[in-house]
């Protein structure tokens, strides 16, 4: 019987010729990623279990990226970064991206591809639920906790239950006003926040084939918001061009067999998908932008691993060109590379950054910032009862700070259009 991409990768990494959904297998790990929130705990468990003198299983395969609580006076948060720093030094880690140096990157899930750590056919675990973003590259990537990560640090292995695969097929050319974010919000709205629990979500169809890597990352980033274990796109020329430009390491591209079995197949004609939001307080609380248009807003936020990539800012700049924002609008480039690029990249005759500055946006330093609230002095954090429209991925109660705040999730187009009007606004008004 045929296998899906996820099944093929897990079979290959557990030394078998085939696996089936439900099998428990021990896999060899290609890359482990951790950050400032979960790294200290992971390293603590590693030492507790393997001894104070223990060395990690493979220095080349561990990537440590501080990104969550960076620009804060919070003493505990800064101590966490010091713990990463000490561990990287003690272990002689080549892939540590320290704060305050030229190597500093910012949000891990965007930094990983930039640095060439996301490669087709591999197994990537990270101590962050949005590690699933890397499935865009045709690999198995998922989030784990500190204990599992510490186990990998010592052994290079972890047990995995092989997930069933749900397939999501998008057909048609993307309308100008639509973004990958609208597609994934439509999916989550259809299947619910636990609609893919324990399963892989495979994205296919002509629309996905035509997407850039950044758009595929947006799709895979939010599979966790439907409870999914991993997201995956079939690697193609777009994938291999991107990856080869960033790493010399060999990799293997897998495709879904013609007779692979799926839990279910869900089809979408993108021409029928409207610009979409998730209303407070759940990513599956879907509405078409047109249904909530006119909702009063206090703030707009563009950033994070799902909505703070170069293409997200270019999209926002297309809408903000020559406009002024009516509400506080926060711009947080996911990584330092993104920040650099939008300073030179142009929309018409102006750089993206120039457009934001002229529109009256506030620009923050690369990191997770207010995406997860964080310490009270975090840039863009919702400290009161604000209503915010955001290109991030979660709007649970209190996610961006205060429990009394309300967050609408939307594409960068919709966020930018809403920032200009001060109320929720469809980007269709800007693309006549």
């Amino acid at each position, binding site marked *: 019987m045929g296998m899906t991409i996820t099944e093929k990768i897990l079979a290959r990494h557990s030394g078998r010729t085939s696996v089936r959904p439900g099998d428990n297998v021990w896999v060899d790990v290609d890359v482990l990623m951790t950050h400032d929130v979960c790294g200290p705990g992971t390293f603590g468990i590693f030492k507790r279990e393997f001894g104070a003198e223990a060395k990690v299983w493979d220095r080349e395969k561990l990537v440590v990226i501080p990104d969550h609580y960076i620009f804060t006076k919070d003493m505990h948060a800064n101590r966490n970064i010091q713990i990463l720093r000490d561990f990287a030094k003690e272990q002689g880690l080549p892939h540590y991206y320290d704060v305050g140096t030229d190597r500093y990157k910012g949000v891990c899930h965007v930094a990983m591809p930039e640095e060439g750590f996301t490669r087709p056919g591999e197994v990537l675990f990270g101590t962050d639920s949005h590690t699933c973003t890397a499935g865009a590259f045709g690999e198995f990537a998922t989030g784990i906790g500190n204990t599992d990560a510490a186990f990998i640090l010592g052994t290079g292995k972890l047990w995995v239950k092989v997930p069933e695969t749900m397939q999501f097929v998008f057909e048609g050319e993307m309308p100008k006003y639509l973004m990958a974010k609208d597609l994934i919000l439509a999916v989550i709205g259809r299947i619910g926040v636990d609609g893919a629990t324990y399963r892989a979500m495979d994205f296919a169809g002509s629309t996905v084939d035509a997407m850039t890597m950044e758009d595929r990352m947006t799709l895979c980033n939010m599979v966790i918001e439907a409870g999914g274990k991993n997201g995956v796109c079939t690697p193609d020329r777009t994938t291999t061009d991107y990856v080869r430009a960033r790493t010399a390491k060999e990799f293997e591209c897998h495709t879904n067999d013609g007779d692979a079995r799926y839990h279910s197949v869900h089809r979408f004609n993108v021409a029928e998908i409207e610009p979409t939001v998730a209303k407070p307080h*759940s990513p599956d609380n879907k509405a078409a932008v047109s249904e909530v248009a006119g909702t009063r807003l206090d703030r707009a936020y563009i950033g994070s691993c799902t909505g703070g990539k170069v293409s997200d800012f270019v999209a926002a700049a297309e809408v903000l060109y020559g406009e002024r924002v009516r509400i506080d609008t926060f711009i947080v480039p996911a990584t330092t590379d993104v920040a650099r690029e939008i300073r030179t990249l142009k929309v018409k005759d102006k750089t993206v950054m120039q457009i934001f500055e002229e529109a009256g946006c506030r620009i923050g330093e690369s990191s997770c910032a207010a995406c997860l609230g964080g310490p009270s002095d975090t840039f863009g954090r919702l400290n009161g009862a604000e209503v915010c429209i955001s290109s991030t991925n979660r709007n649970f*109660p209190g996610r961006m700070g205060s429990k009394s705040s309300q967050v609408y999730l939307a594409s960068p187009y919709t966020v930018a259009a809403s920032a200009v009007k001060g109320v929720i606004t469809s980007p269709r008004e800007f693309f006549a």
Partner: protein
Amino acid sequence: MKPIITGRAFVLGNDIDTDQIIPAAHLVYKLDDPEERKNYGRYALSGVPAAQSGLPQGNVPFVRDGEWRSGYTIIVAGKNFGCGSSREHAPFALQVAGIEAVVAESYARIFYRNAIDGAFVAPYETPDRLAQEVRTGDELTLDTAAGTLTNRTQGKEYRLNSLGDVEHILRAGGIFEYARTSGMLQKR
């Protein structure tokens, strides 16, 4: 995991995410410092909106001000418990606060996995909508060998779903102990 888990119930609704279990601002304390780790108990479930905290009445504080142990032993919840981030601080915070088991209709997978591999709390699934029946404060007994939950306050007994393949990891005391007993890691 104890063979018999007994104590008071704290009842919650659907989709309790990890930001509600332990808000992101509190992820900074050391997990292995005996004093500092108490903060995880202190702020456990502090992100749950007040009206949803301790159902059906609501507005029940899980941990009283100034304390770090909750006085509750078993959480009873609806669907998709522990959704959201991968933070292991979530099952850990519940454990520090004194929770030994969670009985929910379903779980988000990372929370479930963390609960088991770290042996923080026993995550049982119930085929019944127990969050509608059990009241916060009810006295419960969970018999892990028999797979039953008894509500001693209401005089009712329920069957829980088997833990399945992962039961031996939980019984061993987590993934490291499991790997030692199965010979994958050296015994110490």
